[in-house]
């Protein structure tokens, strides 16, 4: 040990290891089984879990088989009845007990997490575990008040949950807490690399007396996960890579299982010329140099205004050079170990392709063991793989923009849409960018801030569904189910009319597709027979044209605002009332009146389906807004040609979406007649596009078009499965509203509006003066 007088010259920090003896005693050569029905099973086939910083084996855990999963799902099913029926207050007590117990064991869990994952102890101690505790407290609250806050809602049942290795215990909390609060039971599969805190959590559940089977934990690799996805659960919730997410979406297609996906990201980090550059540099530290860059929402694409780029880079470089890479258990470590050698190789592979394509890597050297120094890629453009692919390591990209519009274009030039960070001292500029960047979470002048009350989740290839707050709770509930009414299957497409001559003395009527505000002939030049007319037979190219028209109309339609759109919908109602007779042959009076009522209802809601400012953290304005999806594909029920069509199109457009609608295949005339009314009612061209033809084919064309942001498909069985399979590639969320009487009052409501929107959470810390509210990040 060096002499004090020597240290007084060098002023080095010295080692500051966290004590891990309690955790090592707990591990001590242990072999873990699964936690099923309140007990640990006898281990059978096992694998080792290691400390990535040393390679040391920490424990043996069990490889979950399909049989283990089935056993766990049965246990969860048995437990769900009682757990779901339990008064919310009683569930709240259990969640509260879990929160308290985790809090009492916070140091143990932080050390265990750091050993298993390699993240610095500072992060597991100051960020992960405190957030876990908060999440359980927050959801103890939801359990208590869910009955009155979500009236008529029911738990989904048994939830299969698959979580990643980057925040093992925190992701467990995000999954388990809302599921339990809502009355579901859980089978959770922790990541193969990092199963230990989940097993410690199982002990905590047993300790607080959580009823057997409410939580089941099955460890294992991807095969175990696949078995869980295939098992008879009611919902799959997954956080992980986009690639695996696609596979899961494909696997559950047509199963009726609910699905939420929180996938990858390549989030923009936009530094405007008026930003506090030091603050922004620290934001990078909290983004991509947090958790070794293994953060799905990390601001990994730094975009900086050209006029400040040189100064920003010099500050960034200086800050980077002060980061300490080293032993995760050392309290002075900033960057710990990459989770596994496989991941390290993956990171280095992307870096070598990025530099091969012309980027320059600053820092970012691979070190002995599972370590990579922090770094960034410069001289890099969007075409470089390093700027497109999620690196999931401590390496950012650094490039420039000239003007705010270019910043937005570059920010949105990605397949992903999880998060964004915007730095500007102008509230005017920052909030504009926050609105225009496509992401589920936007941090203004901050980065990677999380809170249980603030919904988190993505758009585009970053997945769908939200975790946290009210939105997160809704994803573990089912709303009141209407009285089911079968929707008749469409008849086979007949290429020619049935031969019955028209008695009509009028001039022959030509119906066309309605695309971009104009009547269009179908691309294929073909028709099919329905309702005694020749109906245009739309196809994939018509869908393409309609999506393009819908995308083009978004700006104007959203620019109208809620009030402006309401005026249009009222005018539509007025014109429908005037032109009732034109619809008379195609829809019943009841259907027409229902359509008019729907116009009023959604006009009324157009400026009232408000978001919320959530009480996430003091000193932070945390704004959750209901953003429209964008372009929606709406496949209307076959059996309800007018009320059904309007019950789906109207909530979608009221919220600011534009729509490509496929009307009833067998009775399309009401919708086609509507086209003329739309044009006279000031509905801008492209807001509602109508493509007739084979329902299922058109649905698949919509679900496999990357420019579509959400699909509603009233269908069952193989038709729906095919749409969901198509959407598993594009990661478009598909909602299949239950068939019902579409003229009935319960064919409208908030649930339709919720499905027509996605929550976007915008964080804005405020404070003119130091307020002493800055905690150590959480």
């Amino acid at each position, binding site marked *: *040990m*060096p*002499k*004090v*007088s020597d*240290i*007084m010259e060098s*002023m*080095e*920090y*010295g*080692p*500051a290891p966290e004590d891990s003896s309690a955790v090592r005693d707990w591990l001590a050569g242990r072999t873990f089984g699964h936690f099923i029905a309140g007990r640990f099973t006898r281990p059978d086939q096992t694998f080792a879990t290691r400390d990535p910083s040393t390679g040391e084996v920490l424990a043996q855990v069990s490889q979950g088989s399909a049989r283990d999963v089935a056993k766990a799902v049965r246990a969860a099913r048995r437990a769900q009845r009682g757990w779901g029926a339990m008064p919310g207050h009683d569930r709240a007590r259990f969640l509260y007990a879990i929160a308290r117990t985790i809090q009492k064991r916070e140091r143990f869990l932080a050390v265990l997490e750091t050993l298993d994952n390699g993240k610095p102890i*500072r992060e597991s101690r*100051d960020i992960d575990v405190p957030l876990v505790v908060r999440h359980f407290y927050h959801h103890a609250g939801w359990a208590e008040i869910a009955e009155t806050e979500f009236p008529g809602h029911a738990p989904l049942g048994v939830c299969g949950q698959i979580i990643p290795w980057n925040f093992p215990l925190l992701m467990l909390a995000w999954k388990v807490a809302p599921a339990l609060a809502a009355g579901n039971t859980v089978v959770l599969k922790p990541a193969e690399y990092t199963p230990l805190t989940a097993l410690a959590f199982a002990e905590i559940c047993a300790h607080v007396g959580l009823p057997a089977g409410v939580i089941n934990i099955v460890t294992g690799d991807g095969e175990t996960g696949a078995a869980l996805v295939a098992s008879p659960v009611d919902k799959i919730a997954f956080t992980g890579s986009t690639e695996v997410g696609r596979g899961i979406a494909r696997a559950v297609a047509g199963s009726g299982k609910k699905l939420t996906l929180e996938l990858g990201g390549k989030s923009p980090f936009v530094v405007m010329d*008026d*930003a*506090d550059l*030091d*603050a922004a540099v*620290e*934001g990078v530290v*909290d983004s991509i140099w947090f958790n070794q860059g293994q953060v799905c929402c990390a601001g990994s694409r730094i975009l900086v205004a050209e006029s400040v780029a040189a100064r920003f880079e*010099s500050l960034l470089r200086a800050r980077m050079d*002060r980061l300490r890479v080293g032993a995760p258990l*050392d*309290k*002075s470590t*900033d960057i710990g170990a990459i989770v596994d050698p496989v991941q390290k190789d993956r990171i280095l592979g992307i870096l070598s392709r990025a530099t091969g394509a012309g980027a320059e890597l600053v820092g970012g050297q691979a070190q002995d063991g599972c370590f990579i120094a922090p770094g960034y890629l410069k001289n890099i453009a969007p075409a470089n793989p390093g700027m497109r692919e999620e690196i999931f390591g401590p390496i950012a990209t650094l490039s420039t923009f000239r003007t705010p519009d270019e910043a937005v274009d570059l920010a949105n030039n990605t397949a992903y849409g999880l998060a964004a960070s915007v730095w500007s*001292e102008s509230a005017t500029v920052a909030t504009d960018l926050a609105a225009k960047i496509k992401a589920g979470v936007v941090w203004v*002048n*901050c980065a990677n801030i999380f809170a249980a009350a603030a919904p988190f989740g993505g758009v585009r290839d970053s997945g769908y569904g939200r975790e946290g707050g009210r939105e997160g709770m809704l994803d573990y509930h089912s709303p009141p189910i209407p009285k089911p009414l079968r929707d008749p299957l469409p008849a086979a497409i007949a290429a020619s009319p049935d031969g019955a001559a028209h008695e009509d003395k009028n001039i022959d009527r030509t119906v066309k597709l309605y695309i971009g505000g104009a009547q269009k002939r179908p691309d294929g030049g073909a028709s099919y027979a329905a309702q005694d007319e020749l109906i245009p037979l739309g196809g994939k190219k018509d869908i393409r044209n309609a999506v393009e028209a819908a995308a083009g109309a978004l700006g104007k339609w959203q620019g109208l605002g809620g009030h402006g759109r309401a005026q249009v919908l009222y005018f539509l109602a007025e014109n429908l009332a005037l032109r009732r007779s034109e619809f008379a042959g195609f829809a019943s009076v009841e259907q027409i009146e229902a359509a008019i009522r729907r116009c009023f209802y959604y006009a009324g809601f157009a400026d009232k389906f408000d978001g919320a400012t959530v009480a996430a953290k003091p*000193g*932070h304005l945390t704004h959750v807004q209901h953003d429209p999806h964008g372009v929606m594909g709406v496949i209307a029920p076959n059996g309800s040609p007018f009320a059904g069509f309007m019950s789906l199109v109207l909530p979608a457009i009221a919220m600011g979406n534009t729509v490509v609608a496929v009307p009833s295949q067998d009775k399309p005339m009401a919708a086609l007649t509507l086209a003329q009314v739309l044009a006279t009612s000031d509905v801008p061209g492209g807001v509602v596009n109508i493509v007739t033809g084979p329902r299922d084919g058109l649905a698949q064309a919509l679900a496999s078009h990357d420019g579509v942001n959400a699909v509603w498909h009233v269908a069952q069985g193989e038709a729906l499965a095919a749409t969901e399979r198509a959407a598993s590639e594009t990661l478009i969320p598909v909602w299949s509203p239950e068939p019902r009487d579409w003229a009935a009052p319960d064919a409208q409501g908030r649930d339709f509006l919720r499905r027509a929107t996605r929550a976007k959470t915008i964080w804005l*810390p*405020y*404070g*003119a*003066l*130091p*307020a*002493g*509210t*800055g*905690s*150590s*990040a959480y």
Partner: protein
Amino acid sequence: MKDHDSKRRNPGTALHLEWFDRIAVNTPAAERRAASLPARRSLKKEWQAAWLLNAVRCIDLTTLSGDDTPDRVARLCAKARQPIEPALLDALGVEGLTTGAVCVYPTMVAAAKHALRGTDVPVASVATGFPAGLMPLDLRLAEIRYALDQGADEIDIVISRAHVLRGEWSALYDELCAMREACGRVLMKSILATGELKTLTNVARASHVAMQAGSDFIKTSTGKEPVNATLPVSLVMLRAIRDYRDQTGFIVGFKPAGGLRTAKDALNWQVLMAEELGRDWLSPDLFRIGASSLLGDIERQISHHVTGRYAAAHRLAAG
């Protein structure tokens, strides 16, 4: 008496508004950084003892009270000569440790000089109408000359807060240049009284003007404002020092005052210096801590480090 010519001085520059007029400090971000910083570094065992002793050699051991007397000042100076009990220092193998300076009112300078004779411990004097500074400029300058005449080795001046609050940067600059001139060959530390400037942006801009006018140190507080040195304010001042160095190549020191009371504070501030500016700013020629009670807490920690027992305050020599 130290040879002031060997000290690094900041010659100052012409007034450059463009170096600071676009600064806008994001306060929540500064607070976040300041809050996470102490949690990012940990000092244990020998390293903790060494960093605490380093803090001692950076302390401007201070008494600035209306009831100061020559004897009270002499007692303080005795502590400055021997800030930590010799047996404890022996155990750690450290010799010749003193505080960085003592800091007193001008009328107490002579007493302090007398009490410190035979040592290298400099005497710093506050001046320019400390603490409010609301005296005519010629009297404030005269007070500097008086303190120098009494033998002061360093001068801690206060700025006119009004100039900052009213954005009168050239007036502030001119006033500080005049003070710097009056200080002559001794170090000038400029007290910004950050607790009265309130916003971090004000603090940053005032820091720049003070450095451009030739301050050798910028100092947070008089100890008399409602809020004295804090980590966020210090962070902003250190970044100003860094920016000024990047612009000019001139090196300026930093002195937090009035907010540091515990050994943990002493560690936190040193971590801040090391992380934001580097090793050079952990030496008394670039880092001073204006404090009085801090030393006692450090001495107790050192005592614990050496003996394994927590010492009661009464067992350690009073300052």
